[in-house]
């Protein structure tokens, strides 16, 4: 599951709803698409314990009933943690998403991990290039610390549109091997939806938007 790309993950969700016989809403137009919006793309190879999605259905359903149906229909590697029916006027998760937290298990021992972390956090800028684009990683790191287990790091990184920190870039900046590490997303942090609500003037719709929380641990390969 963890090697399922963002688009394929959408498909996996769509099929889960179809198997669950839940009336997924589709977009209008020439190429109708299921109205499923994941809060933030999970990079290929990452596992996660905390994915969020906005999903529109064609009719009102109790969250618990929908959740039960989805649990029975989910493929291996996708577990549903919770669902709630939300006000359609809320801004989408993609807009609310502020930060993401990760646990990174390094490929090999790093005895001086604490020193490396302190040295990195002492920097005021961390100029880097990713996909031929220069950017500063430092402001995207909201927190970074060694976990109690050896070789494990926890971090909180910005996850806004056009300002998303990638944990492998952090590992790389620590002078450690980023390729062999395991990345696990532990949480998505949102701006308070009600704070933004005032600023959003969405028409009152009849659609229900369910919010699903998903655990995506991925199978052991």
């Amino acid at each position: 599951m963890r090697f399922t790309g963002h688009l394929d993950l959408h498909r996996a969700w769509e099929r889960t709803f179809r198997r669950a016989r839940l009336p997924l809403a589709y977009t209008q137009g020439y190429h109708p698409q299921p109205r499923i919006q994941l809060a933030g793309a999970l990079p290929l190879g990452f596992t996660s314990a905390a994915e969020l999605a906005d999903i529109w259905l064609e009719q009102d359903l109790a969250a618990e009933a929908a959740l039960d149906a989805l649990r029975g229909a989910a493929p291996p590697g996708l577990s549903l943690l919770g669902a709630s029916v939300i006000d359609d006027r809320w801004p989408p998760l993609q807009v609310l998403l502020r930060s993401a937290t990760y646990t990174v298990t390094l490929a090999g021992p790093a005895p001086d991990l604490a020193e490396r972390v302190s040295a990195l956090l002492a920097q005021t800028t961390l100029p880097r290039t990713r996909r031929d684009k220069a950017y500063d990683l430092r402001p995207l790191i909201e927190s970074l610390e060694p976990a109690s287990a050896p070789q494990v790091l926890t971090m909180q990184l910005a996850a806004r549109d056009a300002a998303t920190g990638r944990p492998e870039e952090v590992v790389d900046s620590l002078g450690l091997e980023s390729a062999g590490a395991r990345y696990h997303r532990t949480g998505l942090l949102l701006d308070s939806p009600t704070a933004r609500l005032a600023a959003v003037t969405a028409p009152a719709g009849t659609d229900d938007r369910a919010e699903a929380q998903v655990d995506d641990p991925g199978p052991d390969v």
Partner: protein
Amino acid sequence: MTPEYLSTALERILPTVGKPGRYTGGELNSITKDWAGADLKVCLAFPDTYEIGTPNLGLAILYDLINKRPDLLAERAYVPWSDMETAMRAAGLPLFALESKRPVRDFDLVGLSIPYEQLYSNAVNFIDLAGLPLRAAERDPRTMPLFIVGGHSAYNPEPMADFIDAFVIGEGEDVIFGILKVLSAWKASNAPKQDLLRSLAGIWGVYVPALYRPEYNDDGTVAAVVPLDPAAPAKVLKRIVPVLPPPPTRLIVPYIATIHNRYPVEIMRGCTRGCRFCHAGMVTRPVRERRVETILNALEEGLKNTGFEEIALLSLSSSDYGDVVDLVRKVGERFAGKHLSVSLPSLRIESASVELMEALKDNKRGGFTFAPEAATERMREIINKPVSTEQLLETVRSVFERGWTHVKLYFMIGHPAETLEDVQAIADVCKRVRDEGRKYVGNKVSVTAGVSTFVPKPHTPFQWVSCDSIEQIRAKQALLKRELRGPGLKLNWNGPEETQLEAWFSRGDRRLGAVLEAAHRRGVRFDAWQEHFNYTAWLESFAECGLDPRFYTHRERLIDETFPWEHIDIAVKKSYLAEDYRWSLRGQTRIDCRQRCFACGILPKFTSLRMETPANAWECPEVRPKHMRRVAAEPVAAD
């Protein structure tokens, strides 16, 4: 090598290769059984990438059937793409099965599906990647898996004969259990390998090449394929299932996109049309249909289990399915309006087809595909696909009239006795179709001509004919490229070199095994992929083995030539094929054999089977006990 070791090694490798989702397994509806609990372990394999192999329906059927048995286990393997192959070889990892992550060489049997010849080099590489000796004679089935090949290429097994222990000629649903029973009994005994081979050869539909020796004439043609053992039948009759078993409904749902992301149901097997170029149409006889209710129930169940957003109703000729109108109406009623697309391929060129599609589609997205195969009346009579240009134009008119804007037309060049005028006619017909479309949808019209090159296939009326030379193909393609230009026209074609590969092997003999091995040593693989196809390496391999590739392609066979596949019996008589070939030279056509039996040979070969099956289970006429039979009519031509 333990699954744990492989999993740990994969953990390091997968993040470094493209599309790692190809190699992880664990998909919905995949089945991982307790290894120790299975008496025999079967690895079902397709010698191309995961995306190509996973939708293969033949393997999906066997996966379902074998795993339903508590004493057996079936897993899957595909060949890794070149980046993964490099990484696996560097890490010393053998080819493994996706479910248990056990090496392929730990299985008791490997069943390779090889539908077409471009996969031969991958099949050889598959054995190599498994860490096993390439040649069957050097493998010990006590400690290594037995390799079985099935699929349409197996009707001429000779080019792969050196590498494979046994071929399944025909349909696999029943025969697989016969093979496994024999293997199980042999494993419980202390008998030598030869005993296993002899027992396998005794199963209806199983060909064991080690028990035969091809002998050649001075001119290189086959003199005979001689059975070397009393257990080896002189002719191996293809296996068929008298009635199609229920379709599998719990198909694997891949996490990554594959070439077909859909739930398929085979509505009918076989074809009664008798197009003379068509291999499938000759080898899959008799025609057997599934009942409408069976199909609808399978769709219901299959969609519930998979959640696919597309269904496909598969057959060689959908329009010929007896209850096609009823089927389409009911599929539309039950499944329409659920954002589900329905594909109904291989429709006849007639307005009725357009009405059928209209009932299935909730929008006019995508296009409409027809396969006239040839563009002049003369050519269509030669290939026995007599559809007039008028009828084609009338059909596309009803397509455009209903708002579709895209029509795709399949043609072939290189048919027997084809001239440049026949090729020119392809371009003319495409333009007329476009002009017709303009009248209804204006400049939105688009016509795609998919023009492939004909390759004569064994067991068809055209098995005697010579292929076009590369120069002839180039000239014909140049004409098409020149003519099929301009707004609303698009041309697709294949490189003539790729066609050569298919042509060498489709009518090849056992000597090509050495060529395959030589090409494998030169690194040849993924011949069906343009970026990998290495024509030069193939020519060098032929030269190394002292064989002339043109012998297999550019040579008209004498009508009484003994073919390398002479000992494979598809139940259609060679004399029937020869007669049909002669008819083609005269431009004489045959009507759909549902309307009258042309005595191709199926009924005399399967008389008792036919008598045991219900009248409506086959499209062939009923066989009555001898004293009740009427005198059989002589075959007659179509009006």
